């Protein structure tokens, strides 16, 4: 057991691509944790997808032995944090496991919205922060401007900022020295009753759930019986140890230490991030504060392109859920798309990651419907209900009021794009709150905005109006009443359930027109005219007609044409099998897809 005053627990807060993983690699090299030869590039990001996207999805940790200039050996525990807004709860838990944080900023890029958001979280958690400017040797780096932005946005004195190049290793030892000098050692008493914070977990096919935890107080030993109040479950510790970053078994983990615990737990959902490990026997401490189950905020339908793949989709989700307990899924069926899954995610990126993993790792071809948020309605009868899908809505007439989730949105923008971003946010029903001046040419705009308005293509739009320079971050604020209405789509007078959406009343006409336009393009002409209508309750807000087919008769049909024509028609008939009959109208699947995928503009 290492005495607490020789332990430093810290994390790195950085924006995507600002060099967090590279810096971690240098730390491991310098401390001899991993030899240069062993070093696979950026060892902390171990999922293929993470590496490709340059995003750390799941937190990891590594323990390093460092011989400091003061002559002492220190145990440095670096806890990696997810870099994306969707995983803010996990970020919070990772921060809670640390006493300090390195605030890493790319000197050529400056501070980004997420970095600021996470730095604020670290500040709230009482962490000692060390500002570090990376990539200072790049030609277009501007360390002074970046340091000033740090001072303006997170109130860390510009002159304290360290300079480094994670790539070449320049200035990295100074950072480690700073970690030892400035970050306080953990406090906990190894003899006190056990309290260990679970900040991450994952599922290993052979050993079950592997828990990553930080011992806050007390000592955890092999063969101890433990209790986790969040799930109310009890287990025996079969193995524990440090992460270097591979698991190195040991006999115990003392207060202030970071490590892994294996108890033969079969299901990932039996372990919840943020929960506390307590001792089952003897004096039992209080659970650590701040535990909650993160709830999915974005929902979408996932449908196999080939209906026969439904079982495979289910199995794949079961498998993914072993490694990610934060998404939910249950079967649903759609008139248009057949059997599928309604899945809930922590955010948009989380959703995209799961979909990509399904397609890549499980080789499933999926149709993903446009994402929706969780609405709350109150019925005239007084009941309250959460709505995850428009199909759960009662009759329009029975709805008393709608509530929708509002988020605090912060956007970091270059000065010249402020107007465009303001327009974008207000078009999306954003309410401007305030502006912070961050640097000479950059400001942070704050809005309150309905989550529904930013989950679909807001980020892409932001990138395009800021020529790639805008970054954003959001956090949940509250549910507020909204003037929302279910928009129904009728084809030849028959309602198409699958196309119903919940929209803001002011937006209903535009959205209705858009959907109808998409249907008009995709539904083939029939022998009769087909009216397409978008309606709120009984009121038609948009309408168009598909003209009746006037002429299709083949002009020439002789000996040589017969076989060719028959084959052509047979092919067309086979295509019709994928059509859905609504009343007497055949709607091709691609018409549904055009609408459900939310192909806006």
């Amino acid at each position, binding site marked *: 057991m290492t005495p607490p005053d020789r332990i430093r627990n810290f994390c790195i807060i950085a924006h995507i691509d600002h060099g967090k993983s590279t810096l971690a690699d240098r730390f491991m090299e310098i401390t001899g944790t991993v030899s240069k030869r062993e070093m696979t590039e950026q060892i902390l990001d171990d999922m293929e997808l993470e590496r490709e996207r340059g995003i750390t999805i799941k937190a990891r940790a590594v323990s390093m032995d460092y011989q400091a200039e003061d002559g002492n050996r220190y145990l440095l525990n670096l806890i990696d944090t997810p870099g994306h807004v969707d995983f803010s709860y996990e970020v919070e838990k990772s921060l809670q496991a640390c006493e300090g944080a390195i605030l890493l900023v790319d000197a050529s890029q400056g501070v980004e919205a997420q970095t600021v958001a996470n730095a604020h979280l670290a500040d709230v958690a009482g962490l000692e922060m060390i500002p570090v400017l990376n990539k200072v040797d790049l030609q277009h780096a501007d360390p002074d401007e970046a340091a000033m932005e740090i001072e303006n946005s997170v109130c860390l004195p510009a002159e304290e900022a360290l300079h480094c190049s994670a790539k070449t290793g320049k200035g990295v030892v100074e950072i480690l020295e700073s970690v030892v000098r400035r970050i306080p050692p953990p406090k906990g008493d190894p003899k006190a009753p056990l309290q260990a914070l679970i900040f991450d977990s994952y599922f290993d096919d052979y050993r079950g759930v592997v828990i990553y935890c930080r011992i806050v107080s007390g000592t955890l030993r092999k063969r101890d019986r433990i209790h986790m109040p969040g799930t109310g479950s009890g287990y025996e510790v079969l193995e524990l140890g440090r992460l270097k970053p591979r698991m190195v078994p040991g006999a115990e983990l003392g207060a202030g230490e970071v490590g892994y615990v294996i108890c033969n737990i079969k299901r990932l959902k039996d372990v919840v991030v943020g929960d506390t490990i307590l001792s089952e026997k003897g004096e039992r401490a209080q659970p650590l504060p701040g535990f909650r189950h993160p709830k999915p905020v974005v929902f979408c339908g996932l449908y196999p392109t080939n209906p026969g793949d439904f079982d495979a989709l289910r199995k794949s989700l079961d498998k993914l859920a072993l490694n990610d307990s934060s998404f939910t899924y249950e079967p649903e069926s759609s008139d248009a798309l057949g059997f599928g899954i309604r899945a809930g995610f922590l955010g948009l990126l989380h959703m995209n990651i799961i979909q990509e993993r399904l397609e890549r790792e499980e080789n499933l071809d999926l149709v993903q419907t446009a994402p929706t948020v969780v609405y709350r309605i109150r019925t005239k009868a007084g009941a309250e209900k959460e709505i995850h899908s428009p199909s759960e809505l009662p009759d329009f007439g029975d709805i008393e009021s709608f509530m929708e989730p509002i988020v605090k949105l912060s956007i970091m923008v270059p000065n010249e794009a402020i107007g465009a971003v303001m327009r974008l946010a207000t078009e999306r029903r954003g309410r401007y709150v305030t502006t912070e001046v961050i640097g000479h040419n950059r400001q942070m705009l704050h809005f309150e905005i309905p989550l529904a308005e930013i989950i679909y293509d807001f980020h892409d739009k932001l990138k395009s109006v800021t020529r790639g320079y805008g970054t954003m971050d959001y956090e949940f604020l509250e549910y507020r009443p909204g003037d929302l209405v279910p928009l129904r789509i009728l084809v030849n007078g028959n309602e198409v359930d699958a196309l119903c959406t919940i929209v803001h009343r002011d937006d209903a006409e535009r959205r209705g027109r858009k959907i109808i336009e998409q249907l008009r393009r995709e539904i083939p002409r029939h022998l009769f005219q087909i009216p397409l209508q978008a309606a709120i309750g009984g009121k038609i807000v948009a309408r168009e007609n598909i003209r009746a087919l006037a002429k299709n*008769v*083949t002009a020439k049909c002789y000996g040589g044409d017969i076989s060719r024509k*028959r084959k052509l028609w047979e092919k067309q008939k086979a295509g019709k099998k994928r059509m859905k009959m609504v009343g007497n109208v055949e709607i091709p699947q691609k018409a549904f897809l055009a609408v459900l995928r939310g192909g806006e503009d």
Partner: protein
Amino acid sequence: MRGGPAPERYDQGIAPFPLEEGYGNALYLHVPFCVVKCGYCDFHSVADSDPQTMREIVGAILEEIRSLGFRPRPRTIFMGGGTPTHLPERLLEELCQGILDLCDLTHLKEWTCEANPESCTPSKLQVLKDAGVDRMSLGIQSFHPSILRFLDRPHGLEESRKALELCRETGFPHLNLDLIFGIPGEDRETWAEDLRTALGFHPDHLSCYQLSFEKGTPLHKALHEERIPAPEEEVCVSQLLSTREYLRDNDYIPYEISNFAKRGAWCLHNVNYWRAGNYLGIGPGASKHRDGWRATNHKALPLYLSSIRESGCPEAQAEFLSERTRCGEALWLGLRMDQGVSLKELEARFGIPILLTYGQLIQEGREAGHLLLEEDTLRLSEEAIPVADSWLMRFLSPSQARVPRGT
């Protein structure tokens, strides 16, 4: 050479002979040469061929007949293409003589030859007449120079007039004009004028086709690339319907969707296609059909020639159709004719109970006013003509084509 068949055959109505087993009924010869390849044409033809190639092909066509293993006894002959009259006179004569030598023409009732105005010389027409051709089908397409240019037709107005007069003078009893409407930008009156001009030549048969943009043709490409405007649908429908009305008023019966004839002047050869009869196609790219077995020859001239040299059999693809598929085809093709189909006849031919098999579709069509069922006869209503394919394609059932032995 022998003389042509007796003209009284036309009084016997549209189906003067029963559909027969074997290829006996209809002989088609494909002559794949043209002066130029027209922008709309997706038929198999080659422009700019040298006399040597033409000689080889004519030789191969006759060789194909020789290699059939039986002596064809056609009731109708149709020489199409391409442009048969594009052949040099000597070769045209050789082809005709070959037919006379290789076929038993005892039962011949109709011999049609397609021609384009620019290749109608008096001597070539005389060759045809002497062989026994009694029906000339001229690719006139339009009497408007601008439309002829649009269609890349190699002839002008004057050549059309001359060719038509020559056909009369040579003494062919039956004359057909091919015309095209639905040209982008063409108005109703321009087309009506073409029809009036055509009737001035007193043909007993007219084929009026809406211009179609077939994949792979220059016109299709031009339309796709928006270098030419698309024809207006409304105008096309109106042209189609007014053509039927105008020609009816002038005693031409619209006996098939695109074909109009004076009483008794139906093209027997083509009627056989629409009755889903058997036919024997000879030449590159030609198709043949015998009781559900259908084959198509190699199109590419070198392949056609080499397969004739090696085996005498130039078939490139073949399929065998189930009774159900044949019945569907017979309904589709038969409904293109104004007389429609006889359900009893189809049931007898294919052993398929029509009303049981297609009952729902027929019922739907009747409710829409597009299909008419009168006693034993099923046919399309006048309203259904422009959108006929919507109904016709639904009679097809998935093909159960099998690969026949040996191919």
